């Protein structure tokens, strides 16, 4: 058995190695680091980008795969979320994992289960719970729905998974040495893993990934509270200010909601904010009737000037709103155009100049951005479902075979299982 060297963890080992050849990132900016950062941010990291774009081109060249990507990129299949049965598949996975008796797979399955259980919509109670959370949002409503959800969804699922849970806990209780040897054993197991397990892994990756995408899609459609505010702003004058404040918040911190809005939702929201601003502007610049006495010529002229000034400001805002709508249409047109032209463009100009493609793919609502967004969700689900992080460590163990890497397996293994 290989032991950890002097009890050092991987990070400690890494640190001591790095102390000798450390290149620091300083506030003033290391020139090389600045170049690296710039290249990463601007997508001019040629080799890496080219491979990804080549892959994208290959995927887009296949009608079925292009269809899948398009479906994911469109991200509007929210109605499916209500119908999927993730709990069933998750439990099937755990049971399969127990049958195979592979601790690593089992713990990955448990992670998979715990990850999506709270958001699963497999039966009436769960469906009700999600419905209440997304529409009602009062503390009492959510609390009552949560009780039902726990009783009918979480509890039965937890009972079914009891065996898996206790075995996972047992594994976590073992010492680091055991985990090291388990990981080494795992290399052999990976090679000899039964077909059923591979099927489970593939299925878990796809379903886990798909569920990740569903989650992302559901978050992306959290427009309901904003829609409420917009409606309110049309009736209640004070609510206009709330809408404007909300826009400021979202613009300042797009993580809050900005990335979760679809193009149409974003456009509706911004247009409504603009309407609210125009409405307030008109109200605040309105002259009192006494001042605007029509018999007084001097004041009449002044009032006309003032009104034309206000009108031109309002018209300007309306023109901007119109531009927004036009831009949105253009973006949509380009997005549709991508389906046919992009493939050809990739075929002919991939080797020559990638910048038009990169330009075409740039922007919040582009295919590449959605791919990134949903790709992240997909990979989260897929990797969690298969336990690939552990496999990566094992692969490293095989490739490098150094004590340092075994330490990595050991520390990683502990954190995966615990």
């Amino acid at each position: 058995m290989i032991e950890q060297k002097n009890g050092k963890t991987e990070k400690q080992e890494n640190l001591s190695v790095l102390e000798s050849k450390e290149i620091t990132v300083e506030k003033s900016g290391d020139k090389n680091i600045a170049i690296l950062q710039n290249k990463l941010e601007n997508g001019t990291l040629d080799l890496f980008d080219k491979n990804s774009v080549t892959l994208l081109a290959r995927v887009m060249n296949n009608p079925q795969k292009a269809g899948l990507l398009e479906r994911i990129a469109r991200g509007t299949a929210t109605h499916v979320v209500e119908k999927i049965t993730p709990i069933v598949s998750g439990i099937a996975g755990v049971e399969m994992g127990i049958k195979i008796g592979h601790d690593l797979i089992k713990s990955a399955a448990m992670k998979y289960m715990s990850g999506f259980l709270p958001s699963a919509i497999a039966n009436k109670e769960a469906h009700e719970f999600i419905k209440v959370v997304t529409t009602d949002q009062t503390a009492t409503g959510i609390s009552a729905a949560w009780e039902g959800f726990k009783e009918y969804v979480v509890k039965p699922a937890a009972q079914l998974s009891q065996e898996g849970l206790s075995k996972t806990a047992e594994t976590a209780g073992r010492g680091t040495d055991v985990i090291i040897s388990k990981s080494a054993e795992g290399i052999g197991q990976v090679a000899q893993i039964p077909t059923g397990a591979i099927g489970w892994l593939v299925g878990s990756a796809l379903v886990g990934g798909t569920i990740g995408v569903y989650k992302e899609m559901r978050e992306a459609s959290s427009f309901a509270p904003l829609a409420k505010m917009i409606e309110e702003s049309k009736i209640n004058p004070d609510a206009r200010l709330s809408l404007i404040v909300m826009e400021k918040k979202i613009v300042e911190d797009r993580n809050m909601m900005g990335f979760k809005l679809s193009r149409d939702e974003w456009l509706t929201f911004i247009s409504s904010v603009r309407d609210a601003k125009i409405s307030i502007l008109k109200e605040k610049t309105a002259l009192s009737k006494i001042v605007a006495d029509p018999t007084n010529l001097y004041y009449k002229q002044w009032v006309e000037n003032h009104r034309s000034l206000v009108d031109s400001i309002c018209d300007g805002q309306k023109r901007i709103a119109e531009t927004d709508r036009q831009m949105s249409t253009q973006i949509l047109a380009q997005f549709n155009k991508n389906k046919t032209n992009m493939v050809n463009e990739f075929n002919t100009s991939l080797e020559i100049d990638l910048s038009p493609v990169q330009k075409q793919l740039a922007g919040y609502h582009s295919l590449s951005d959605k791919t990134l967004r949903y790709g992240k969700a997909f990979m989260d689900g897929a990797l969690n479902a298969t336990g690939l992080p552990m496999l990566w460590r094992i692969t490293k163990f095989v490739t490098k075979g150094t004590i340092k890497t075994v330490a990595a397996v050991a520390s990683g293994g502990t954190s995966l299982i615990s």
Partner: protein
Amino acid sequence: MNNENFISEFCEEILSEIGVTATDEDIFNKIKTTLEDRVNSRLFLEIINLLTPEQAAKLTEELNIKNPEPAKLFERLAVEIPNFQGLVAQILTHLHNELISDLTAIKA
């Protein structure tokens, strides 16, 4: 640990190997986040690329139809990507080496 940590660790490891350290957390995290996005996006495309057209069509259908049965999808796919784990582990290894040499070249 979850996958987010895994991708994050994967990128940290790459940055460590080429000698970029977290002395300035802001800059380091900025670089790491960009790198993470790229790794995620790449892995996503690689997995889509691993699918056969039929699997892709099936998955697209899963996103369409009202009552999908993921459990059946498991069985059907069981024989179609027979070495899925190995393939993804391979992709990770290639990506790791590719990023190391690429980033090192830029830094040099």
